[in-house]
């Protein structure tokens, strides 16, 4: 009998065949299933929002776990409060608002995933939430691709305007520039800049540098700390040695606690070298310790102590719902406003459809706790009153200066000649 080759399974042959088969299947299926190419129109994503029932669904997307949860849960509380109030008053277009909550988990990729889930699976009419710029940048393509709406409630670095996002927090000309105007008015001739190392502080400091060059203010130093860094002896010593008239602080989160403790520790006071902060609100003061930060300045659009009938109602309702020891802050108020602004736009448009809301948004206003806010239909930001607050011994902030009426939003700083080199408008 002639010799026969063995038919035992040769690993190499099995491997080669498996590999070839896998590649072939993938290639076949993938090429058979190709869609539109660049430049071609993609069929618009079909909205699945159900407006036939007695309820209308909206999404609340905040970080309920992870490092940002301590801040973002307060925003969630404010969103729920506004929804409850609107429902108690008869809802929107006669429909009760139903919240679908999701956890962004302090991770940009999770924010993108959950936003898509809210839009495509839950079919919500709008989403409220987001805090960090990273989370907003992650969500932006999701809302644009699926043609849905995000209401983003936190002050940010500007230089953005999306058809699918409404920005109810301050852009730079409603917070940072007024803060600089205030410092210049009080005779500050030199500044030291301290910030966390991410996009908001870097953009803010680019604006501050341009402003300072124009107004003859000297920048004596610019230091960045890693987000979450708590080692500030070097930076504070440099600040102290610089002899600057004031410090502009764009640190975020826990770093503020370490910074202000070190600042008080080396004997610097608000009288000799005031610190202007843009990320410290009522919530943060307790964590830092009032004794370390009393007398320092902050720039926002809203404080719990703002005197207006709308704010009295808001603060009372919030404390009644969540406890007398809770405080209200700027991002919470902006989130509260965002729900009311959405509802008012829906009432004006008499429709929940995205294109109707976009078309009717211009001029929609709300008598908010900070004063009347009006949506700008072009850039989807809102008018806001700038306020400089001083941190007092009771842990609250009190307004020491405010702008003459609400400031028009200018996210690309087109109205400021000295900012011309900063931005490339699209």
């Amino acid at each position, binding site marked *: 009998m002639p010799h026969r080759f063995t038919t035992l*399974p040769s*690993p*190499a042959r*099995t*491997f080669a065949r*498996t*590999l070839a*088969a*896998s*590649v072939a*299947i*993938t290639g076949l*299926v*993938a090429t058979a*299933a*190709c*869609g*539109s*190419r*660049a430049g*071609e129109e*993609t*069929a618009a*994503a079909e909205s699945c929002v159900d407006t036939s029932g007695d309820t209308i669904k909206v999404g609340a997307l905040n970080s*309920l*776990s992870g490092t940002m949860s301590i801040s973002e849960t307060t925003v969630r509380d404010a969103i729920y409060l506004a929804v409850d109030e609107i429902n108690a008053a008869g809802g929107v277009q006669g429909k009760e608002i139903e919240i679908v*909550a*999701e*956890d962004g*988990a302090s*991770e*940009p*990729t*999770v924010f*993108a*995933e*959950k936003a*898509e*889930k809210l839009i*495509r*699976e839950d079919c919500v009419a709008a989403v409220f939430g987001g805090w960090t*710029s*990273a989370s907003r*940048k*992650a969500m*932006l*393509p999701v809302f644009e*691709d699926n043609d849905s709406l995000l209401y983003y409630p936190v002050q940010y670095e500007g230089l*953005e305007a999306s058809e699918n996002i409404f920005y109810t927090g301050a852009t730079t000309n409603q917070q940072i520039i007024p803060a600089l105007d205030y410092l210049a008015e009080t005779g500050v001739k030199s500044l030291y800049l301290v910030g966390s*190392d*991410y*996009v908001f502080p*870097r*953009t803010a400091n680019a604006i501050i540098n341009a402003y300072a060059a124009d107004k003859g203010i000297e920048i004596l130093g610019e230091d960045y700390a*890693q*987000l979450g860094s708590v080692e500030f002896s070097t930076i504070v010593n440099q600040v102290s040695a610089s002899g600057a008239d004031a410090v502009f602080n764009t640190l975020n989160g826990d770093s503020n606690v370490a910074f202000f403790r070190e600042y008080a520790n080396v004997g610097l006071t608000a009288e000799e070298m005031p610190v202007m902060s843009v990320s410290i609100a009522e919530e943060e003061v307790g964590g830092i310790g009032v004794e370390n930060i009393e007398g320092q300045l902050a720039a926002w659009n809203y404080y719990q102590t703002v005197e207006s009938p709308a704010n009295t109602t808001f603060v009372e309702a919030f404390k009644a719902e969540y406890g007398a020891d809770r405080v209200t802050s700027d991002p919470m108020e902006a989130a509260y406003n965002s729900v009311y602004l959405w509802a008012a736009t829906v009432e004006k448009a008499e429709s929940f459809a995205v294109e109707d809301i976009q078309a009717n948004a211009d001029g929609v206003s709300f008598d908010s706790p900070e004063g009347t806010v009006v949506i700008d239909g072009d850039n989807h930001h809102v008018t806001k009153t700038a306020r400089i607050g001083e941190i007092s011994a009771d842990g609250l902030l009190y307004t020491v200066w405010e702008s003459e009426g609400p400031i028009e939003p200018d996210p690309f700083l087109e109205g400021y000649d000295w900012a011309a080199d*900063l*931005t*490339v408008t*699209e």
Partner: protein
Amino acid sequence: MRNFFATRLGTWTGFAAAALVLFGLAPLVLSGFRLGLLAQFTCYAIVAVGIGLAWGRGGMLTLGQGVFFGMGAYLMAMHLKMADAEFRNGPGAVPDFMELAGIRELPAYWAPFSSPVFTIAAILVLPTAFAVVLGLAVFKRRVKGAYFAILSQALAGAFAILLIGQQSLGGFNGLSRFRYFFGYNLDDPVNQQMLYFIAAGVLLVVVAIALQLRRSRYGELLVAVRDAEERVRFLGYDAANIKVVAYATAALFASVAGAIFVPVVGIISPASIGIVPSIMFILGVAIGGRASLVGPVVGALAVAWAQTALSEQFPSAWTYAQGLLFILVIALLPGGIASVAALTKRFQRTPAPVEAAA
């Protein structure tokens, strides 16, 4: 069971069943959104196959696969941003995020990434070469065990910090807003499904490669190095070289997974590649069963799926549920999900095959 899947027929059956589920069943029963999620999880599974090889078979507890995942992801993201800028503003255009960061000139190291061929080559070669160099430096000095684990984890942390400081790579926010994938619109559901098929196909290929490595003489050597490195050395083999191959293969898998992850998810930032995500990769492998072939795949998919499902059900308490699940699996199934079969055999009072004690 085990014996059947060790035969050629068994291998074919296994792959055919997997292909049927991935290419046939999944697109049928899952909505577009869920299919996109599965594509994302599949990327984690591809990383997991590599870890199964390096850790499960080779004993190298690599806590820093985020580095290689991130390399592949950023290389792909750079190409997508370049292609996007060139499509809108012509050759040499600056990507949109750079304009916002005040960067007017395209940095020189970005320029080659306008070429798709260069990008794909870079995704395959750069992380692998880096792993080879790093592996030689570490394993030749006989660094192993906890020291290697700490080193690889520190590397992941350092890489994330390095990226946060790079404004020309998007800094803390990373890179996002990709519109086209090699000329195809990413907002088209058909193309999103295509991406899923690519991810699923790559997973099958990667599992096939891992299977081949396990069954080859090299695979035997790798296990031998894991269990008794000194003895293998006495037999005249260079244990370092054997380890480097597994480590570099794991790096290659992670890089390819990162490259697919970017168009699927639409964003890559330092938050997705640092220490925590690297540990999540390991966790999936540990839960699934690091020493088995499909254990890492099952574990990675299960962990990612559980995270999504739990957080959708209990938005404010899901982390506790997830933690409890991890404790239960590790405590009751030290060999991972893949050891369930062995466990049932034990209850039937037949001796379970002893596989891969660590």
